[in-house]
């Protein structure tokens, strides 16, 4: 072990929460007082709701401190380092004692995220120290054939983690079977699902895992070139990838004759340019080729005719991050986790109305209830759970009645949702499901490439119908018309973006039809979200006539005499809610 280590989590969320300042503070302290610990950087460990995170590892054990701003940083350095007295109240996780956070950590199985938060991602030596590049070395030294490598991946049962769920081994096999003078491996790091940041965390925290996996994939199918297509909105991930690629090249893990095997492989980074549709594989390929990211009809499939018309494999970041471990530990190890059809683990990004926001990696088959109420810590502020959205704008809402569904590709589809890439957004009683559907559709309409009629025009008309409904102008016939249009778009759109665009609408219609009916028949938004359907009322019994609300009202909509109940003129009211915030007597409510 040696020296005491102080490790600061510097993933994007950490930095956004102020970890950069925390790091500088600790660094300054160390220099000023000549302290003898090792100051290191790491990435996101997944416990985003407790950022900034600082881990202290000394000869007694490991102590992960949470919510450490500059002030607390001084405190823990002073007490833990200076006085050898750990500050237990700030500890969120330790190997010595349990904390409330154990509920978040204990049921997780970290394969994809195994190195995140444990290593400095900008130092290849730390990756190597934790079995890094061992899988590649094994293939080279044990002379494992490319066919055998593919067989291992097939036997493991791993399926695409980007949302498609296609058996990875089969994809590799198709590409390997093609004879071509040039083949490509592409890592799809264009994580565009709003609410998903699993891939970002892997790229920021453990970039070498992705590189190693790509080399293995290249060897398996006979490709010598790879691209990582990463969103430009992830500057830290891009920086870490560039550093990792440089280091890998220097160490001979990329380039010519890797491990003396005679196999060459090179990786280039391509930045996305702000188009969610480029997460779709044919759009991604055409984007690399320098075109508008418009998807193409399949067949031909990329494994047969992909980038520059050559056989190409496109794999998601999370899928790839599993590969080295599968090679090292064997396919049986991997397939021992999960369900019959969905093997291994899945990383979810928990967000929305949930206490423990962050990244969790759990075995397939874990129930939604466990993820949300045990690991996720339940709904904050005592509110009632309403629905959980998986699959982002391509997915569906899962209501309370399906909370015991095990997470698995097929079972999620069966209830009208999908696995998606891992975004898991929680909604409570204060969310309006019609507004949620409208929000997702607005995203899809903006990101639609515009090539095919059903998506370009169909989703836009769907959005207009939803807007009408949230403004109180919809009718019951509109609901039927909407549903009909949804089914049409699902069946006729050219690519998965269009085909899945109606999912949020269909699933909310299925499970929350009553909310839609309230909007069109009663012209009321039960959750009180849709501005045009909400109105504020003063309860004359409670109103003391203090006139505060009338004075604060920006529209001059409240009238009344002093010490007499006041009244809101609904025609002037702009629904800003200031009056309700102002009233000290709880006399104003939103209906």
């Amino acid at each position: 072990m040696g020296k005491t280590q102080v490790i600061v989590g510097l993933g994007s969320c950490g930095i956004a929460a102020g970890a950069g300042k925390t790091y500088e503070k600790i660094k300054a302290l160390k220099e000023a007082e000549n302290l003898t610990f090792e100051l290191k950087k790491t990435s996101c460990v997944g416990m985003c709701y407790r950022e900034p995170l600082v881990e202290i590892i000394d000869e007694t054990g490991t102590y992960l401190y949470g919510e450490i701003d500059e002030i607390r940083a001084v405190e823990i350095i002073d007490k833990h380092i200076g006085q050898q007295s750990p500050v237990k109240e700030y500890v969120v996780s330790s190997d010595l004692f349990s904390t409330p956070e154990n509920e978040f950590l204990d049921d997780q199985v970290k394969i994809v995220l195994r190195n995140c938060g444990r290593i400095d991602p900008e130092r290849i030596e730390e990756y190597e120290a934790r079995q890094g590049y061992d899988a590649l070395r094994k293939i080279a030294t044990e002379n494992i054939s490319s066919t055998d490598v593919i067989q291992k991946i097939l036997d493991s049962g791993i399926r695409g983690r980007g949302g498609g769920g296609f058996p990875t081994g089969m994809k590799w096999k198709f590409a390997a079977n093609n004879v071509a003078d040039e083949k490509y491996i592409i890592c799809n790091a264009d994580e565009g699902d709003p609410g998903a940041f699993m891939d970002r965390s892997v790229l920021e925290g453990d970039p070498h895992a992705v590189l190693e996996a790509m080399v293995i994939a290249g060897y398996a199918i006979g490709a010598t070139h790879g691209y990582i297509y990463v969103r430009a909105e992830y500057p830290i991930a891009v920086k870490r990838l560039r550093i990792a690629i440089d280091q890998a090249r220097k160490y001979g893990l990329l380039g010519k004759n890797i491990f003396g095997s005679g196999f060459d492989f090179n990786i280039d980074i391509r930045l996305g340019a702000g188009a969610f549709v480029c997460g779709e594989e044919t759009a991604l390929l055409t984007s690399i080729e320098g075109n508008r990211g418009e998807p193409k009809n399949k067949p031909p499939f990329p494994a047969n005719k992909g980038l520059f018309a050559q056989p190409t494999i496109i794999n998601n970041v999370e899928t790839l991050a599993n590969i080295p471990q599968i090679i090292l530990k064997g396919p049986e190890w991997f397939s021992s986790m999960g369900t019959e059809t969905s093997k291994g683990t899945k990383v979810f990004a928990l967000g929305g109305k949930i206490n423990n926001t962050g990244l969790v990696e759990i075995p397939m088959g874990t129930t939604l209830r466990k993820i949300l109420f045990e690991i996720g810590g339940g709904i904050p502020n005592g509110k009632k759970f309403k629905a959980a959205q998986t699959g982002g704008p391509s997915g569906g809402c899962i209501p309370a009645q399906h909370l015991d569904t095990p997470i698995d590709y097929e079972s999620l589809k069966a209830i009208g949702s999908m696995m998606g890439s891992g975004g898991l957004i929680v909604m409570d009683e204060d969310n309006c499901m019609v507004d949620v559907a409208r929000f997702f559709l607005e995203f899809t309409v903006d990101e639609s490439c515009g090539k095919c009629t059903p998506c370009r025009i169909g989703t836009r008309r769907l959005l207009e119908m939803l807007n009408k409904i949230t403004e109180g102008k919809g009718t019951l016939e509109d609901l039927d018309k909407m549903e009909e249009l949804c089914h049409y778009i699902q069946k006729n759109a050219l690519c998965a973006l269009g085909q899945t665009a109606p999912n949020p609408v269909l699933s909310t219609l299925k499970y929350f039809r009553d909310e839609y009916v309230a909007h069109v028949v009663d012209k009321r938004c039960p959750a009180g979200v849709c501005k045009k359907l909400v109105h504020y009322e003063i309860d004359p019994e409670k109103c003391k006539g203090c006139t505060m609300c009338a004075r604060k009202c920006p529209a001059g909509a409240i009238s009344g005499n002093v010490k007499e109940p006041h009244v809101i003129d609904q025609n002037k009211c702009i629904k800003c809610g200031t009056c309700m915030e102002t009233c000290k007597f709880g006399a104003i409510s939103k209906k």
Partner: protein
Amino acid sequence: MDKVTVKINGIEVKVPANATILEAAHEAGVRIPTLCYLKDINAIAACRMCLVQASGVRGQAAACVTQVADGMVVETNTPELREARKKTLELLLSNHRMDCLSCTRNGDCELQALAREYGVDQYKYKGSEDLKPQYEHSAPHLIRDNSKCILCRRCVAVCQHNQHAAVIGTNERGFDTHVGCAFDLPLGETSCINCGQCIAVCPTGALTERDDTGPVWDAIADPKKHVIVAPAPSVRAQLGECFGMPIGTNVEGKMVAALRRLGFDKVFDVDFAADVTIMEEGTELLERIKNGGKLPLLTSCSPGWIKFCEYYYPEMIGNLSSCKSPQQMLGALAKTYYAEKEGLDPKDIFVVSIMPCTAKKFECARDDESAAGVPDVDVSLTTRELASMIKRAGIVFTELKDEKFDPIMGVASGAGHIFGATGGVMEAALRTVSEIVNGKPLENVEFKAVRGVEAIKEAEYDLNGTKVRVAATSGLENACKLLDMIRSGEKDYHFVEIMACPGGCVNGGGQPHQPGYVRNFVDLSAERAKALYSEDSKMKLRKSHENPFVKKLYETYLEKPGSHKAHEILHTTYVKRKVY
């Protein structure tokens, strides 16, 4: 190519293994509707009209791009598919300014036809956007109105790939996608070559030619004007289509009769001027070969090609023949030779050409195209515009009796007629040049090697000991290939014919519209060219230099081909143009 067996709606057909479902269905007599697909031009499966059920394909298959497999079973006519097509049309119509009554494509529009076939409710998905006209008419030959565009992208495909001009593209994304130029510049400010292929392939009224019939009606009604009309070789092979006649019907006689009835004072034939062009250009070729002039000599009758050369291959401007195009030569001669003969003031002569071409609208306004101090040609109309004039005048085209052109500039040889086909100019020139060089009559006037629809046609002929290498191509994508080979020294020719439009003028930008389901299965260029070659084969007069009226022109007026007077009247100059 192996054949496979496919079942379409229960009907078994045998098709080549690489056929698409659309092609197999055609074999079975089943028409699957399409809007964006155009063979060899646009195959992007974007409109979703052609979706069908096919065994072995998950979900639905886009018939236009999906290849058949042996034993495939296809259903094209289920209730669900019909309902889906109806919705696709309704969605397209919801974003389409419905101007059918006054639109030039009323009755001739692919969207309108399908809407009728599927019994759509055009207002079902009416949206929130305000569909006002979005006219863009900065270019001399066309008007674009994006409020009618259904984003089939055929125009973009033909401009970018087949014509290599790439001045239009798709801009923005999603619902805001629209066809436009770089920086959304007006078309007139780009390096558009006016070939009009985009208009020819547009399924709706989003792209139309500029309507120039107004000035023509006015001129005809003006007693002071002597109005001359002259149709191009291709027009007689196309015009019948506008009146329901089969593709490739030669309607020369009816066309002349209709033109007379419209009230033109004289009906001449541009084919006559084509013969003159051969005299001038043939002489030019022989001169360059003899005196070591710039070779290869490149033909100059296609104004779209000329403009393309001026933009993109300026270093080859010196290779271009200095001859005006037949249209311009006819106008020039009308206002000089004919005017003098009849004692008319060129200012009172109004020359109208009827062309299968839209670039001709640009050509009449070019510099150095005014032999008599006034423009050689006043107005150029497309075949389509002529058809509209005939209909508006109440002339029942199909019942007209054949008439003949006015002879002084109305008699042409077969060589003049075949100008409209790709390879036609080359063949016409070879007939004259080889006879002059060899000094004896040709045994066989047909130079079949330069005929046909291949991309680039090459041939070598022995002319009295000199091996003369020639090539002919059409479509600017092919022209670029050929020119690059010439520029790099890989190929070496004496004489090259280049036509901007793929398949030659018979497939020009001004042609009658044919819907996708015809274009995808009929080779329009080949069928229309047949009419021209057939007329030529039946004639006795098949060589330009034997045309008695051409001989008379030279004997009494121009002296000889390439004379000073001929150069003043019948030759022109070119300019280098900056791309954008």
